[in-house]
């Protein structure tokens, strides 16, 4: 089966320093892949590269079996959706925030009016539609941010540590809800986190990036029980002890 995304021989630099070097990574359709690693390891660089917000020095990204660079940045990005660590909601109503991506794609008003309440309900924030985004709590804002991305039905959803700023109970509830939604919608997802239990809960496979290199891609059990090398072992044990 052709993977949805296949990355080969990738080298990304930020300034003069190598931010990410990756020989091969394949992301299957409907899969949730967690990317873990210490701070500064290159996890977010991978997401930004997959969103074509960073240009690699070399390497190729294939999307659905075709070269991603064959289409314009905007066309490519309209097949994905990015959720960042901070919700970064726009200074307008919750409704308009969730509608924004659809408006960028020229979706008709009637369809927007129909879809937005639906997705706000699915994320449990339907009652907040008319509220201004700056009046929301951290958990509510992140739910709105997820609704804003999921409403686009992206072929690839990129999540960059979306729960790291939330308190543990809020994080746990949101993680449960997101897990259910991703299963229901069969959305291919790359989920960056430095929280191993979080990664294991949401993803079928975990990619471990340490020191700007991909060290292991395997099931959570394999990462915990059969780490590929000393670096992965140290990272996993350190995180578990923490």
């Amino acid at each position, binding site marked *: 089966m052709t993977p949805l995304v296949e990355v080969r021989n990738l080298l990304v630099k930020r300034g003069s320093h190598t931010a990410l070097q990756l020989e091969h990574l394949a992301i299957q359709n409907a899969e949730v892949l967690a990317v873990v690693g210490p701070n500064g390891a290159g996890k977010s660089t991978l997401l*930004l590269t997959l*969103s074509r*917000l960073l240009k690699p020095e070399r390497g190729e990204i294939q999307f659905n079996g075709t070269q991603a660079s064959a289409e314009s*940045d*905007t066309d490519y*990005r*309209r097949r*994905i*959706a*990015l*959720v*960042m660590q*901070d919700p*970064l909601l*726009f*200074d*307008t109503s919750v409704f308009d925030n969730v509608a*924004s*991506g659809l408006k*960028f*794609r020229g979706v008709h008003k009637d369809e927007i009016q129909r879809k937005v309440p639906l997705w706000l309900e699915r994320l449990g924030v339907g009652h907040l539609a008319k509220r*201004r985004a*700056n*009046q929301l709590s951290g958990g509510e804002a992140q739910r709105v941010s997820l609704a*804003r*991305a999921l409403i*686009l039905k992206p072929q690839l959803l*990129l999540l960059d540590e979306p729960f790291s700023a939330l308190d543990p109970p809020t994080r746990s509830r949101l993680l449960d809800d997101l897990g259910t939604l991703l299963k229901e919608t069969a959305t291919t997802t790359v989920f960056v986190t430095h929280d191993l239990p979080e990664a294991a809960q949401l993803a079928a496979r975990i990619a471990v990036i340490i020191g700007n290199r991909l060290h292991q891609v395997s099931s959570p059990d394999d990462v915990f029980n059969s780490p590929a090398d000393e670096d992965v072992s140290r990272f996993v044990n350190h995180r578990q002890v923490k």
Partner: protein
Amino acid sequence: MNLEIFQITLLSLQISAIATGLSLIIGLPFGTLLALGKFPGRSFLLSIVNTGMGLPPVVVGLFVAMMLWRSGPLGDLRLIYTPTAIIIAQVVISFPVVTGLTAAALQALDPRLILQLYGLGASRTQMIWMLWREARLPLLAALMAGFGSVISEVGASMMVGGNIRYQTRVLTTAIVLETSKGQFDSAIGLAILLLAITFLVNWALTWIQQRGVRK
């Protein structure tokens, strides 16, 4: 006299509104380019613009007068001592104000907002439009500062407009003339009128601005 005051007031408003509008048309995209662009000389251009924000109107008047003077490089256009000449000078005064404050407003936004907008599928134009929307409060302040810098200036209007009755006399130059003649009553009346107009325009813009204030 009443009719003349009305004509002077109307001309002042027309000239300053057109000059502010033109400054906005040029300054908004230019300020955006300076804030978001990555090209050699960007910082240098930004420092020129920031210096331009404090340009003395008489200096602008001097250079615009030299350009438009009958023997000057643009003398053939016969614009000296016309309302158009005042508009040109006022654009030179207010354009750096609008540009500099636009750049500052956009640079104050969270830089990750651009990544987020692109990550939701915004085109470059849509991304810029959304940034203007996010920065609408300081951008309206830029507009008010631009208007304030031209409605109140006298040096440039006097030098390139010539303060010609019924043609290029505006409120500020009329106040100077009345004061020089010792006609303080008329000068004070015109000054109150100028203050009232400036207040009304800024009040309207502030009202629009504060509708969008974060509560």
